[in-house]
């Protein structure tokens, strides 16, 4: 047997001068190309500056005007700024609306995504549903709010909201706004889950079927656990969308700022109220309250909530590229059936 011999690398360097070339210099480029190059730099830096300015401005103004008492006091309409309370009601309202909307959108959205991905029979129905979802994703929320008002002010749905003495139904309540939000958020949830299911390797399904399991069993015990992270991120992103919408709130939840329960067990839910978004609108120069300090403070709190939701989504998707992709699809930026 031939004994292995080691080869010692010669650990010297070159005796000649060493050059470290950088990136390609643009000196020799045609003028047009150089122009674009500088335009990219200018725009890029400009974008960074605008982004920084927006973030810092909101932080500065928000912190300047935010007092902890605002978070726990209800709004009290008054002439002077001092005693008009905080925005506790709107904060509660935000949470209630998000809860209702997500509770509706997530199960329904997941169910639709599963149906589209695993069953999708008959074919024409599946395609129609896909087109309908894509249309829904593009519908302005004002239109959705209008439609909601139309539906919920019918007499037989009066139990969902307030009925006045003369028998007219207002159609505005937490429940109605929540349902509208659920409809708004459903396409996001469907997209996130569908994308995740589509990215699952087929061997998961094949293996389960080889064991003789039905499709629904496979879905329940194999596929859904596998897409847990993507579903969670989809749900979080739906929450983000719900938190940020104003039009549905103002139209379907009333323009006030206090929670006005409607009496009874579901009183709170059937009553009107406000969320942070409608409160900000109220306190802006266009609304009746017009105290911009409160508006900034509330906007700051809203921003923190959005930041927290974003961070939550990123954290859930931290190790999973599939879930990260579903963040994109959840915004409809990558809707699989539009490819």
């Amino acid at each position, binding site marked *: 047997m031939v004994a292995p011999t080691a080869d010692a690398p010669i650990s010297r360097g070159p005796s000649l001068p060493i050059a470290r070339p950088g990136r390609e210099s*643009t000196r*020799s*480029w045609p003028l047009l190309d*150089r122009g*674009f190059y500088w*335009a*990219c*730099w200018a*725009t*890029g830096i*400009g*974008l960074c500056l*605008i*982004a*920084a300015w*927006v973030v810092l401005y909101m932080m500065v103004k928000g912190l300047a005007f935010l007092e902890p008492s605002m978070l726990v006091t209800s709004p009290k309409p008054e002439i002077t700024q001092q005693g008009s309370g905080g925005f506790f009601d709107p904060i509660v309202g935000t949470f209630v609306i998000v809860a209702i909307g997500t509770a509706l959108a997530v199960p329904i959205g997941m*169910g*639709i995504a599963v149906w589209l991905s695993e*069953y999708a*029979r008959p074919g024409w*129905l599946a395609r129609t*549903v896909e087109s*309908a979802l894509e249309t*829904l994703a593009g*519908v*302005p*929320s004002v*239109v*959705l709010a*209008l*439609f909601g008002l139309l*539906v919920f002010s019918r007499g037989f749905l009066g139990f969902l909201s307030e009925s006045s003495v003369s028998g*007219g139904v207002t159609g505005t309540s937490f429940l109605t706004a929540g349902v509208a939000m659920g409809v708004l958020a*459903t396409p996001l949830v469907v997209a996130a889950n569908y994308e995740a299911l589509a990215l699952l390797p087929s061997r998961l399904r094949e293996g389960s079927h080889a*064991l003789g399991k*039905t499709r629904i*069993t496979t879905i*329940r*015990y194999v596929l859904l656990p596998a897409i847990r992270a993507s579903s969670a991120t989809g749900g979080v992103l739906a929450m983000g969308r719900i938190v*940020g*919408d104003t*039009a549905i709130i103002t*139209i379907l939840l009333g323009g006030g700022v206090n929670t006005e329960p409607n009496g009874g067990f579901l009183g709170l839910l059937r009553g009107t109220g406000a969320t942070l*978004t409608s409160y900000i*609108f109220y306190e*802006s*120069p*266009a609304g009746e309250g017009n105290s911009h300090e409160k*508006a*900034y403070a509330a*906007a700051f709190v809203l*921003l923190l909530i*959005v*930041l927290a939701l*974003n961070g939550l989504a*990123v954290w859930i998707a931290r190790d999973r590229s599939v879930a990260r992709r579903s963040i994109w699809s959840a*915004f*409809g*930026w990558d809707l699989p059936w539009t*490819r």
Partner: protein
Amino acid sequence: MIGFGQRAPHPHAAARRDRRAELTLGAFAVGVLVVIAAMVVTVAIKAWPSFSHNGLAWFGSGAEPDASMRAMRDSTPLPGHSIYYFRAWPLIWGTIVTTLPAVLIALVVSTLAAVFLTEFAPSAVRRTVEPVVRLLAGVPSIIYGLIGILALAPWIEHDFISNSRKQSVIYVVQLNGNNLSTGAVILAVMILPIMVAITMNALAAVPGSWKEGSAALGVNRWRTIWRVSLRTARPAIVAGLILATARALGEAVMLDLVAGSRDFNANPLDGLTFLYEPVRPLAATIFQEAGGLNIGALSHTLYAIAAVLLVSATLLSLAGWATKRSIARFGVL
């Protein structure tokens, strides 16, 4: 051996359960379909009286929309017209004049900025800016509206609109910081982050072998970006554009805050003053008049406006789908 999850070992029972599950889930899907169909149908039905009374002139100009709507609220029709009389052109024009510039600005700026961030910027800059851009994409539009009305509008009013300009049109309209330029700018700022994020994603997905091959053929970096990277990213950019336009069209609250909330028919022949005239887009109109939804004629008019918005949203989706199909021919999509 039964294995997980099977409570009914009988094959027929299992198949029945599967079938039931399929039908239930299918019912969800059909439910969504029903909701959307119902929405389209009801909006169309409620909108019809307004269109039928005005015909195609609905889209034209005539009396100011605000005056028409006031007449509907007071139940006293304008002289010589029915209660349904409505001419939407100032609102349509307001939509065009805020949305179009915003989308164009956002397209150019987002593409250049995305190229900067993915190709030219030092990685430290990219790593800091990328999450900020993603965060900004999720910021609620009311916050942009707040910044617009409390920060941008006063600045524009103070620094751009001179007193003499205001005086020159004072009998027709009052100029202030809430005008179409502010609206367009804030709209652009709002849709920029989404488009930048989508474009950055698409550019990063371009296979490195293509860029390397292009460099090895003696093509400089910018031309490589232009002819290979941007071309490959084109479908994604189009998708982002469609998404951003849909969002811009549907933006009611924010534009109501900053674009002037007056149904003024901004006149480009006014020269530079044109940029500072107040407008109100369609969606913002619905939002502002939403209180009057129980008044007959007014509600029909509002639903008519909603119908126009619905149709444009659908047309946008169709356009996006069609463009992507034609572009995808050469790529790996």
